[in-house]
């Protein structure tokens, strides 16, 4: 078998089983070390001063008194960040977000930091820093930010993606457009045309572990950082650029991670810790409080979306159009473009147009949340699909099936699809017992589809065979949701040895080549591709060792079921050699046995899901209860089905919270009023039913085992599925997320008043 032999009717032995995860015991007993658990000798306590204003010009910062306080070892402001020579606008935004330079753009924006001998001293020092602000008018609402007379957040913001380029600055940072056909002609062909505006609140990923790191820069310019991250290699590269270090001299070790979901793909405090350490010449630990996490680390966008769709009486969608306005915080982003690309991706449309607008507002810098930007777009579009079905008296799933994209469909974002799985998830949904189960009083059933891209990227792995024949895989993507178990299964499969004879280890940045982050549903897809290549290189090496031990030609040695077999005329009487047999003689046949691979994984394949949910609504209070929830999604090949199901369930649970409860609430003063889990309520176990899952295994032809990513798509349909269920339960169309009890009650009352 060649190194890159693609999957073809492979029968798996290890892949597809459900062994216990190797990191499980440490995690449930408290032995696992997370970001804040690491300590170094002489370590200082870091603390950050944050703006109390939504928008303010920083006139001056006086740190003199703080620096003189006994026990304070370093104070850092934006003046300590040397940006000369840095031209990447994204990196400059990261630096400005980590430490405000001229303007504090949101409530919680960092303005200064202190490293002191203990937390008490650090807190006292922060109080001695005098910042003179000039308050500016602020705007936190995405539509208000676009209106005439709105406070201008960045005077240098001229809308990108418009030709000719605008000469007047605005809060519209980026315009993107996708589509094909002629929507005006398409709407003329429709019997029913509906236009609505949908809004979604700003939600946070809500990971349990706050951001944390320990940084240490030595006087010789080399450094180390221990950090909770989704991508330590990317963090190393960006921090090295920010601090003017050689990347090779900054070794970054990832801790265990208590959730990330996109929020830990971004630098929030790490460069500050490194600068404090360099200035103090001591290690510095910096840990965000929960309030800091909410106020100053990337939530997803709040949105306002106009959708217009037309359908014939027999259920053909003739045209679809949307303008999607996504808040990106005070810095430009591409979030609206992802919404514009994904919004109609599930459907076969002859006429479609989407326009995405990224809008600057006085809120924290937006970052990814699972399938970034897709859930909000799906909420708008999938809500309207249900409404269209209702208007033509057609079952909502039949309308979706009739218009579903398929192989050969030109996608709404441009390319023509190859083989895709939306049809399979819809067929499975239609046949699922959940669709036929009876509903109780005040209950409604909703469904929705979702799409996400998935991707691969750079990966690097080492496979080392120990003298006893056991194997260690060293890889560079963070284990967020069971990567070590999955990689161990892949190595066991490829080498033909038991799962418990494999140890999967996540390397620090000094041990492997560059690895992309655990994001984009890429972790298992890309790392397993590299791991398989490493294994196959090691097998080639072991075939050569066996040939040497038998003194026969390499061509006469085959590999099967974890053993070298002698074949051909020269060696037919030799007993097979196991990996342990070959490893035991490695010192006499050439030294350690290993396989090193470095790849760029591409061809992840797009992903689709269909969700079904039942909701009960108390008509007197608007209170909701999720009665039943089912996730159906294509996983390619499920390496460890339990963790695939976990990804499906996790995405659904987060989507349920986003749909029903979660929202950033800002006061008139532009300050965040609910920066804690008491007032920003994520679902707990008692809020949720057991979330059923159905894994479809349609092999990805671009992966040796048929694997595709599964981590993100599951958060796309829930907002719309719940919206449709609530609307079916109350007979009131919900157009705003979260659908909190007061909002539902208000909609019920408004509907009664209009009757």
């Amino acid at each position, binding site marked *: 078998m060649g190194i890159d032999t693609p999957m073809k009717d492979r029968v798996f032995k290890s892949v597809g089983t459900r062994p216990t995860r190797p990191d499980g015991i440490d995690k449930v007993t408290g032995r696992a070390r997370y970001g804040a658990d690491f300590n170094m000798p002489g370590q200082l306590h870091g603390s950050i001063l944050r703006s109390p204003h939504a928008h303010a010009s920083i006139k001056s910062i006086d740190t003199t008194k703080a620096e003189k306080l006994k026990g304070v070892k370093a104070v850092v402001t934006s003046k300590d960040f040397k940006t000369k020579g840095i031209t990447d606008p994204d990196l400059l935004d990261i630096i400005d977000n980590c430490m405000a330079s001229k303007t504090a753009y949101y409530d919680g924006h960092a303005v200064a930091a202190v490293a002191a001998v203990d937390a008490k001293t650090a807190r006292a020092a922060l109080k001695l820093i005098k910042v003179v602000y000039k308050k500016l008018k602020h705007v936190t609402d995405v539509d208000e930010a676009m209106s005439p007379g709105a406070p201008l957040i960045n005077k240098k913001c001229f809308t990108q*993606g*418009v*030709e000719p380029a605008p000469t007047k600055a605005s809060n519209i940072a980026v315009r*993107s*457009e*996708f*589509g094909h056909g002629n929507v005006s002609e398409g709407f003329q062909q429709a019997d029913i045309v509906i236009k609505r505006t949908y809004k979604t609140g700003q939600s946070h*990923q809500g990971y349990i572990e706050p951001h944390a790191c320990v940084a240490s820069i030595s006087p010789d310019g080399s450094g180390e950082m221990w950090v909770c991250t989704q991508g330590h290699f990317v963090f190393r590269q960006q921090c090295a650029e920010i601090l003017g270090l050689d990347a090779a001299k900054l070794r970054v070790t990832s801790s265990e991670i208590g959730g990330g*979901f*996109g*929020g830990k*793909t971004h630098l929030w405090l790490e460069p500050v810790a490194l600068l404090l350490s360099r200035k103090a010449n001591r290690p510095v630990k910096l840990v965000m409080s929960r309030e800091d996490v909410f106020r100053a680390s990337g939530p997803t966008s709040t949105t306002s979306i106009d959708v217009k769709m037309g359908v014939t009486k027999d259920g053909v969608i003739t045209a679809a159009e949307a303008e999607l306005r996504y808040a990106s915080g005070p810095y430009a982003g*591409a979030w609206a*473009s*992802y919404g514009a*690309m994904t919004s109609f991706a599930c459907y076969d449309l002859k006429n479609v147009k989407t326009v995405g607008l990224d809008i600057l507002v006085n809120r924290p810098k937006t*970052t*990814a*949340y*699972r*399938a*970034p930007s897709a859930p909000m777009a799906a909420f708008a579009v999938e809500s309207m699909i249900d409404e269209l079905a209702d208007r033509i008296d057609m079952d909502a799933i039949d309308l979706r099936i009739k218009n579903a994209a398929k192989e050969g469909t030109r*996608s709404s*974002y*441009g*390319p*023509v*699809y*190859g083989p895709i799985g939306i049809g399979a998830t819809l067929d499975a949904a239609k046949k699922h017992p959940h669709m036929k189960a009876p509903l109780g009083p005040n209950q409604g059933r909703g469904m929705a589809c979702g799409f996400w*891209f*998935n*991707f*691969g*990227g*750079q990966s690097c792995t080492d496979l080392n065979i120990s003298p006893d024949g056991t194997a260690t895989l060293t890889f560079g993507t963070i284990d967020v949701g069971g990567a070590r178990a999955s990689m161990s299964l892949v190595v066991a499969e490829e080498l033909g040895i038991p799962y418990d004879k494999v140890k999967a280890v996540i390397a620090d940045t000094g041990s492997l080549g560059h690895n992309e982050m655990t*994001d*984009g*549903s*890429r972790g298992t897809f890309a790392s397993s591709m590299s791991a398989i290549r490493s294994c196959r290189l090691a097998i080639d090496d072991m075939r050569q060792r066996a040939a040497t031990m038998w003194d026969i030609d390499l061509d006469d040695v085959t590999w099967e079921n974890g053993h070298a077999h002698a074949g051909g005329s020269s060696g037919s009487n030799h007993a097979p050699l196991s990996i342990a047999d070959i490893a035991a003689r490695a010192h006499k046949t050439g030294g350690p046995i290993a396989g090193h691979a470095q790849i*760029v*994984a*591409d*061809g*992840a*394949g*797009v992903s689709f899901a269909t969700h079904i949910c039942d909701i009960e609504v108390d008509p007197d209070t608007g209170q909701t209860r999720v009665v039943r929830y089912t996730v159906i999604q294509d996983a390619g090949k499920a390496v460890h089905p339990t963790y695939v199901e976990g990804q499906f369930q996790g995405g659904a649970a987060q989507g349920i919270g986003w749909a029903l409860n979660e929202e950033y609430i800002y006061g008139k003063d532009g300050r965040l009023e609910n920066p804690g889990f008491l007032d920003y309520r994520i679902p707990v176990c008692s809020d949720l039913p057991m979330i059923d899952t159905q894994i479809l295994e349609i092999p990805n032809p*671009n992966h040796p085992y048929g694997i595709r990513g599964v981590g*993100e798509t599951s958060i796309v349909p829930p907002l719309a599925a719940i919206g449709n269920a609530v609307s079916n339960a109350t007979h009131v169309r919900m157009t705003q997320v979260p659908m909190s009890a007061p909002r539902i009650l208000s909609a019920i009352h408004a509907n009664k008043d209009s009757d």
Partner: protein
Amino acid sequence: MWGGLRPAVGGADFVEIEAKTIRLLMTKLAESYPKLEPLIEDGVAVSINGTIYQDDWSKIIPTDAEIYLLPRIEGG
């Protein structure tokens, strides 16, 4: 190509380039349409017959394949 690139090629949604690999495609696009170069540097993904490639620029482009240029995707 997606709407974000069209202003850089005079508003066209389609251009003709002969190239055997993604790398050659990008090089020739930048040569033919200099305004595209910074956009390519910012991040462009290439769809070949519906399969999206973000990084593997050595990918050989089959004859008669449909090529579509897209924004580079970030994930969570």
